[in-house]
């Protein structure tokens, strides 16, 4: 495989983590414009732990997950009274606050591989884990894809669990959920936290792959893309967000003559897809229809 192709595939895999985290929040009926912040938190945590403390990648990614999830937990508890547009804007302002405070965080250490540590607007440079461990781009792609696959398979198995069904009910109609004894607070906080963790994990991988990160990478456009992917993919099935990723990066960016106008085309495409499929391409109703067909076939 050519390097160009491997890079595109890796980027698709990494951004899928944001798309899936946006998807998880959409399941409980909220819209987040701030998942890029958790991606950024994860990236900075992994970068710090691998360079400054020399920790193993597994431990670093674990902490990326946990720390981002904790931030998401705090945010979700603070915004427990907000829903819809109010929550969306609250998450956006949280994300921008995080990004702006990165400009003020400066803690650098000189090592034999150069200056490392968060360095305000200069970003975090020399994240040399890939080079120190001789991980080729192909191998890194394998790591990223297998983590993403593990996550998606887990989600697909969870899809039929009571936990996910209740969460979907909370997202669809809190009144009915309460009337059968489901506590919306628990699902809302739980899913927003989980989504934060997922984004943080992806961010950790992103930091390792990119070898340097800076505050402007975690701006609002990253969040728009992540959200747009899961919205056009639809909320029916965990593979939905990947459809969005494929349309944007797989089709638009990798086709040379389109890539210059990618943002223009993609923005319009999202609005157009939402007119045709207001609930996304793989909508919950579509999934129900497919399930019904399968049941009828086995009964016949």
């Amino acid at each position, binding site marked *: 495989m050519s390097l160009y192709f491997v890079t595109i595939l890796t980027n698709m895999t990494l951004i899928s983590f944001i798309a899936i985290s946006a998807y998880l929040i959409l399941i409980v009926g909220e819209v987040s414009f701030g998942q890029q912040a958790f991606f950024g938190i994860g990236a900075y945590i992994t970068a710090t732990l691998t360079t400054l403390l020399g920790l193993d990648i597994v431990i670093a990614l674990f902490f990326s997950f946990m720390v981002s999830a904790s931030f998401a937990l705090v945010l979700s508890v603070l915004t427990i*009274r*907000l829903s*819809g*547009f109010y929550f969306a*804007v609250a998450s956006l302002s949280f994300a921008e606050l995080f990004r*702006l405070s990165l400009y*003020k965080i400066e803690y650098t250490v000189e090592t034999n591989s150069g200056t490392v540590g968060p360095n305000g607007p200069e970003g975090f440079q020399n994240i040399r884990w890939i080079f120190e461990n001789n991980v080729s781009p192909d191998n890194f792609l394998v790591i990223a894809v297998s983590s993403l696959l593990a996550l998606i398979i887990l989600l697909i198995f969870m899809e039929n669990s009571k936990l996910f069904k209740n969460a979907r009910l909370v997202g669809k109609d809190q009144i009915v959920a309460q009337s059968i004894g489901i506590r919306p607070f628990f699902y809302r906080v739980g899913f927003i936290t989980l989504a934060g963790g997922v984004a943080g994990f992806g961010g950790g991988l992103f930091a390792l792959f990119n070898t340097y990160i800076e505050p402007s990478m975690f701006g609002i456009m990253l969040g728009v893309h992540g959200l747009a992917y899961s919205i056009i993919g639809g909320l029916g099935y965990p593979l939905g967000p990947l459809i969005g990723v494929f349309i944007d990066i797989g089709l638009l960016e990798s086709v040379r003559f389109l890539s210059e106008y990618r943002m223009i085309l993609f923005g319009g495409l999202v609005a157009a897809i939402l007119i045709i499929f207001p609930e996304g391409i793989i909508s919950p109703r579509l999934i129900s229809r497919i399930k019904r067909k399968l049941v009828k076939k086995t009964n016949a």
Partner: protein
Amino acid sequence: MEYIQISIDGILYGSSYSLIALGFSLVFGVMRRINLAYGSSLLLGVAIALWVENELNISIIFFIPIVLFFCSMSNLYVERFCFAPHNTKAGVVVSMISSFAIWMQLDEISSQLLPDRTHSFPSLQISTFEVGGLFFRGDQILNIFIAFFISAILFLAVYKTKYGIVLRAVANSADTAKLMGCNTKLVNSLTFILAGVLGGIAAFLVLSTESQVTPLFGFWCTVKGLVAMMIGGLGSLTGAFWGGLLLGLLEAHFSYHFGPVFREITTFSILLIVLIIRPGGLMGVNIYKDLKSRDERI
């Protein structure tokens, strides 16, 4: 003395926020929807107008109507593309996300039209004057008057004219208004055009005080307008005016004491705090009186 000067600068600067927030408030007030692409559509309008000016080399008198025209047209485009197709109750969130996605499209078109990072913008050339040792920027004084004037006119138009009654009827209940014979589609489109004209005036005044335009103007407009509106109270015209001034005042003091990054940090901190403590805005209503039921009718 120093504090007074900073406060004056802050409030005068805040007039730009008020101007933008009024447009937001108008759309939210009538449609109960948020147009996140508002700032970007103003940027696009300005970018097209600048491009036209560049090609035809026209004077500032003709430049202003061109800005207003293209701002309202790009706003209308957003309405037709992101809001009109989603006019059901379930469409509230979809249209918000759709406008969020269109944001990147409009921003990208604008930055292709303005290839340089910063682009000069015609200035009104009003000089700064001094009263008792305090400095007042003339163009910003003009802005604050125009912001006040516009909010007063809008207030009168919405509460005292026939068009205002139709507007409020649609805001109150689009379905009922439709049954009473209002053309709600037309009202929505007109609202967006009006918001575009309003935004065009705001964009022109703001940019002429800055005498330059950058591709970040769209993001700036959306965020500041949104924050000013939410501080004041969602959908309240007077709230938007005062919210903008308050935001300008607070930003000026915080950035003076802690450095320029704190201008933005203040903006978002205020937004987050207001949302957590009083989501309806300082002058708006308390949206969740009954926590248990939210505001939904069962």
